[in-house]
């Protein structure tokens, strides 16, 4: 199955049921992030970016386990999640380059990717911000009589902020249909987890909230999806929240300006040996879904598609100046309307 750049976020999301597309999407995430680094060097990107290369299996594993009308909140390390959930490469690259083709029309930037059509709230630039919001989405899902669930994706750094405690406690006491997904990539900004957190496994904290906690190999998209399926099913059954910890690793530093020199020698190399794309490609080869040179072919195909998307972005204009004032409130949007998920 080949997905073209012109496919809608929803179509891209539905395509993710296909095993080859799952692999292709992981390659796409890697490829888009590599292209973003290049665009940064070429002067097309402002501010900062936070790459998640190495964590692609988590993004794809989550996205294939939930429906497009389940709600996802996520942090600023969200390029991969946005792409996995369905945002197009042009939507992500365009946003990061501040063009109208971007998924937030160029108003947000790298840290604020959004796509209501596939359940993605604007990703938040504040650590922990998405956890309480996911609780609210879950509360609304239940109040409106649906079986929708909310997924809060955050990092190990977020496990030490008050929002984590308040949200897990609130969700547990209310039995909310939320899945709390901690991507433990071992670093909160520039600081290794052992210097900030007195436990190795964030999942053990689930016990304090009387909810299940799972520790998952985040480099294996199938294991991610399996663990998510259990937590999502529990939430849908109305049995309450879960905490799922994905053990993973970011190959880059915290942000654009971080060379990550603080990492112990050999750590990166050890994780590169368990690259999520290679792990999944090997599995598809074993399943006879991928030919011998299939991975290289896919990579070349994806690179070409990402180049096309990049060209589309660079052809796309910056937003009109009127955009500055157009979305502040209903008064500036010229109407008294509310807009929300599940509006139909």
């Amino acid at each position, binding site marked *: 199955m080949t997905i073209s750049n012109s496919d809608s976020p929803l179509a891209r999301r539905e395509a993710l049921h296909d095993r080859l597309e799952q692999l292709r999407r992981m390659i796409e995430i890697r490829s888009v992030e590599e292209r973003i680094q290049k665009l940064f060097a070429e002067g097309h990107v402002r501010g900062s970016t936070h790459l998640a290369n190495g964590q692609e299996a988590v993004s794809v594993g989550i996205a294939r386990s939930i429906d497009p009308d389940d709600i996802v909140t996520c942090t600023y390390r969200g390029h991969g999640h946005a792409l996995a959930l369905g945002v197009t490469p042009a939507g992500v690259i365009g946003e990061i380059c501040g063009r109208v083709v971007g998924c937030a*029309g160029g108003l947000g930037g790298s840290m604020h990717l959004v796509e*209501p059509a596939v359940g993605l709230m604007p990703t938040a630039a504040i650590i922990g911000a998405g956890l309480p919001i996911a609780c609210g989405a879950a509360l*609304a899902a239940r109040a409106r009589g649906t079986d929708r669930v909310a997924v809060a994706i955050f990092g190990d750094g977020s496990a030490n902020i008050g929002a984590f405690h*308040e949200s897990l406690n609130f969700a547990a006491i*209310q039995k909310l249909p939320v899945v709390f997904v901690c991507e433990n990539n071992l670093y909160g900004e520039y600081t290794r987890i052992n210097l900030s957190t007195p436990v190795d496994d964030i999942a053990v904290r689930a016990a304090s909230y009387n909810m299940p906690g799972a520790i998952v190999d985040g480099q294996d998209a199938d294991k991610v999806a399996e663990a998510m399926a259990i937590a999502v099913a529990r939430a849908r059954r109305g049995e309450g929240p879960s905490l799922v910890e994905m053990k993973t690793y970011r190959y880059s530093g915290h942000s654009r300006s971080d060379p990550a020199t603080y990492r112990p020698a050999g750590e990166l190399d050890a994780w590169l040996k368990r690259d999520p794309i290679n792990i999944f490609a090997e599995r598809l080869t074993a399943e006879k879904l991928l030919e011998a040179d299939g991975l290289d072919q896919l990579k070349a195909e994806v690179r070409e598609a990402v180049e096309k998307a990049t060209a589309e972005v660079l052809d796309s204009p910056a937003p009109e100046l009127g955009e500055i004032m157009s*979305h502040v409130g*209903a008064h500036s949007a010229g109407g008294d309307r509310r807009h929300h*998920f599940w509006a139909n």
Partner: protein
Amino acid sequence: MAKIWIRQAVLRALDDAMADDPSVIMMGEDIAAAGGPFKVTEGLLAAHGPKRVIDTPISEMAFMGAAVGAAVCGLKPVVEMMFIEFIGVALDQLTTQAATMRYLSRGRLTTPLVVRASAGAGQGFGCQHSQMLDHWFRGTPGLKVCVTSNARTTYGLLRSAIEDPDPVVVLEPRILYAEREEYEFDRTYRIPLGKAEIVKPGKDATLLACGAMVRVALEAAASSKADIEVIDMLTLWPWDRETVLESVSRTGRLVTLEEAPAGTGWGAEVVSTVAVEAFGSLKAPPHRITLPDAPVPYSGKLEARYLPNAAYVTEQVAALVSTNKAPTPWWRNAA
């Protein structure tokens, strides 16, 4: 006409809003089973059920954020901050998340939620339970802020705030909850957000106030020799430039009466606008009556001095009108 407590106007507005719109829910500490520490939510649990009237843990960040998520998913949450200071631990969810949702989604997602809170000084609650803190919200594009001043404005503003498609903060002066007033409820009554009201016309000076200070302003105007026009601001952001500028163009003098420290009070922006846009009509420099830049004191004697009272306001306005020079605030030479 029936006399009611002002807190009953809060309760009635919430009750009617929940009855009229099934998407309205409430969250807060002790609001359901206990009926609220100020009894402003008494009976709502019985009337609307535990799915819509939700007691939360003492976790302001959790329920403030849950309101954001619920609003984006089609509900209209009303959250109660028991004392407005409690929102300090949850501010991110309102000022950084709710206020930017419409912007970041380019209008595809909105956050119609209301934060209501008891606020203000005068009852000996000390410096951490007595502030107005409207300036925490006024500076954030995407939020609206209003302040209630009596039974009618409480009902009218709350109903409008709950119907607004954007996040609104409603500050309710706690000192007014137990005041009794004649008021006949009208289920259709609304006060449009962003509109001020001339509550007493006059021709010598315009006196702006909001919240509990409106009563002080009216009392001062009643005992003044000068003919003072009193305006209840009602909404502090976006504030009603038209009504204020029109009034000042007639009276030629502007006085703001603010329950806020001088450095952050809402009058600063109003005075700056009037100075620029009504410069030609001014007979005297605009004058701000504010709190000193100090925390709210506990001792009754100190708190009584700290808050402007009618005698002090009368004296300040009289000095301005008779000399056309701004009088000195009492606290400038008090240290």
